[in-house]
């Protein structure tokens, strides 16, 4: 029975994908391919700002591609001066605050942009031209095909296809967050000294990727189309460290986390909050394992987060083995 339903799903998706993709423009697809390649082939350095409601910060970035290795250093110019160093997509060091406790959750899987996958859930269009950080840019509109994700306006550098600006907008067209380069130099690759982290940048020791959804014992009855599990961990930061588990889902562009924690008080009220681009919904479910607090946090609409929270089920261990 399961095989039949899987088969029909597979056939259905094979038929559906080309039809859906027809709404996206080949030019936009081409630009996103160039973007994915640029990150692996182009050295650059620059500075950018990030804004979401109530928060504004400025950062510097150094990105070097040499001998097939991609090294990237990100450093905050204001506030606490957060810093992170990535080599070939893996975080090798970070300031203590930024990735506090994350070392235990670090694994090797690294996500890359896949325009073909994106086209199933978003319409990709070339929306015009703009000028950002003193450079000519082309605007790629990434328009969600359903109400379960937000849209983006991506401004890509015409010369190198590097992202110069990213605006996340909700279904009403309201701006939720802004990432914008203010200076970009693609001619001068960063030197060794630029990529040397500050002393406060603590090395991360990658943990063995042993956590699986099956071990964590949770599954979702419903997920917004296109979202799949890309990571999980048997750890939730907070008052009851180690007592819960977390799952990370991704549709190729947007991500959300699901935190599951056992609670004693089954009368907790349900809560929802929207913080700029990030929605947070907390609900409690009563399961065979007892009362559970399910919290969904991510860059998805509040209603979708709520539905995800309501759809979490305890995994039947027997069935999964």
């Amino acid at each position, binding site marked *: 029975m399961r095989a039949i339903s899987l088969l029909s799903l597979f056939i259905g998706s094979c038929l559906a994908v080309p039809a859906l993709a027809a709404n996206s423009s080949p030019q936009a697809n081409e630009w996103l391919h160039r973007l994915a390649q640029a990150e692996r082939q182009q050295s650059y350095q620059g500075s950018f700002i990030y804004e979401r409601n109530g928060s504004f910060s400025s*950062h510097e970035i150094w990105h070097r591609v040499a001998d097939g290795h991609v090294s990237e250093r*990100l450093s905050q110019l204001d506030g606490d001066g957060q810093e992170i160093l990535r080599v070939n*997509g893996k975080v090798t060091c970070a300031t203590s605050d930024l990735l506090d406790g994350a070392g235990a959750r670090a694994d090797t899987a690294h996500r890359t942009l896949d325009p073909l996958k994106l086209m199933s859930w978003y319409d990709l269009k070339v929306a015009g031209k703009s000028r950002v950080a003193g450079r000519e840019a082309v605007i790629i509109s990434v328009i969600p095909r359903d109400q379960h994700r937000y849209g983006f306006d991506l401004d890509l550098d015409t010369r190198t296809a590097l*992202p110069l600006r990213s605006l996340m907008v909700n279904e009403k067209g309201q701006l939720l967050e802004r990432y914008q380069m203010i200076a970009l130099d693609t001619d001068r690759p960063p030197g060794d000294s630029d990529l040397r982290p500050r002393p406060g940048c603590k090395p991360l020791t990658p943990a063995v990727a042993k956590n699986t959804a099956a071990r964590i014992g949770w599954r979702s009855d419903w997920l917004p189309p296109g979202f799949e599990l890309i990571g999980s961990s048997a750890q*939730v*930061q907070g008052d009851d460290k180690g007592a819960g588990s977390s799952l990370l889902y991704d549709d190729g562009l947007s991500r959300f986390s699901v935190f599951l924690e056992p609670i004693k008080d089954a009368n907790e009220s349900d*809560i929802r909050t929207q913080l700029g681009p990030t929605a947070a919904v907390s609900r409690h479910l009563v399961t065979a394992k007892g009362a559970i607090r399910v919290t969904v946090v991510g860059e998805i609409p509040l209603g979708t987060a709520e539905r995800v929270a309501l759809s979490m089920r305890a995994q039947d261990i027997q069935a999964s083995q």
Partner: protein
Amino acid sequence: MSREALQESLSAVLDNEADELELRRVLSALDDQDTRATWSRYQVARAAMHKELLMPNLDIASAVSAALAEEAAPAKVKQGPWRSIGRLAVAASVTVAVLAGVRLYNQDDITGVELAAQQPAQQTLSAPQAQGPAVLAGYSESSEQPTGPMANGVLQNQAGWDQRLPNYLRQHAQDSALKGSETALPYARAASMEDAK
């Protein structure tokens, strides 16, 4: 009728909280130029409070007056017990007209924002000004706005949530940053969560 009472009624109508008496009072006073000016001032204030765009030239009052003029005529013809029912019907239709007007007014706001968004980037940029995240002159870093329970105007006064929420946000941002992406967005989000601590 006193000026204050009228203003109170005006405000009640604006908030959809007017009873029938207040509604009639406001409608009969709306021919007055001063009252109209007050009405539109209240609308500006309301739009500002709700962080909405304002449709400056939408005059619901005149539409309602027109509806009244049309409806009043057949109602007068009726005699006896039916007359009062006819009057009730007029009152009901006026209420509907006002409510629908306020509704339309709000919907128009949203459409306005949407229209702005459908045009390329330059237009989209005007959205934050209506939304409020734009940094004001009096903005202070220590306002702690992002993680508070009042964030985005959603009042959530649940014990424990205020402490837990920053942890959830941070772990989500960190896990996303660890997964990497083509832009520095997950990193920037994580850093912005740290600042908000």
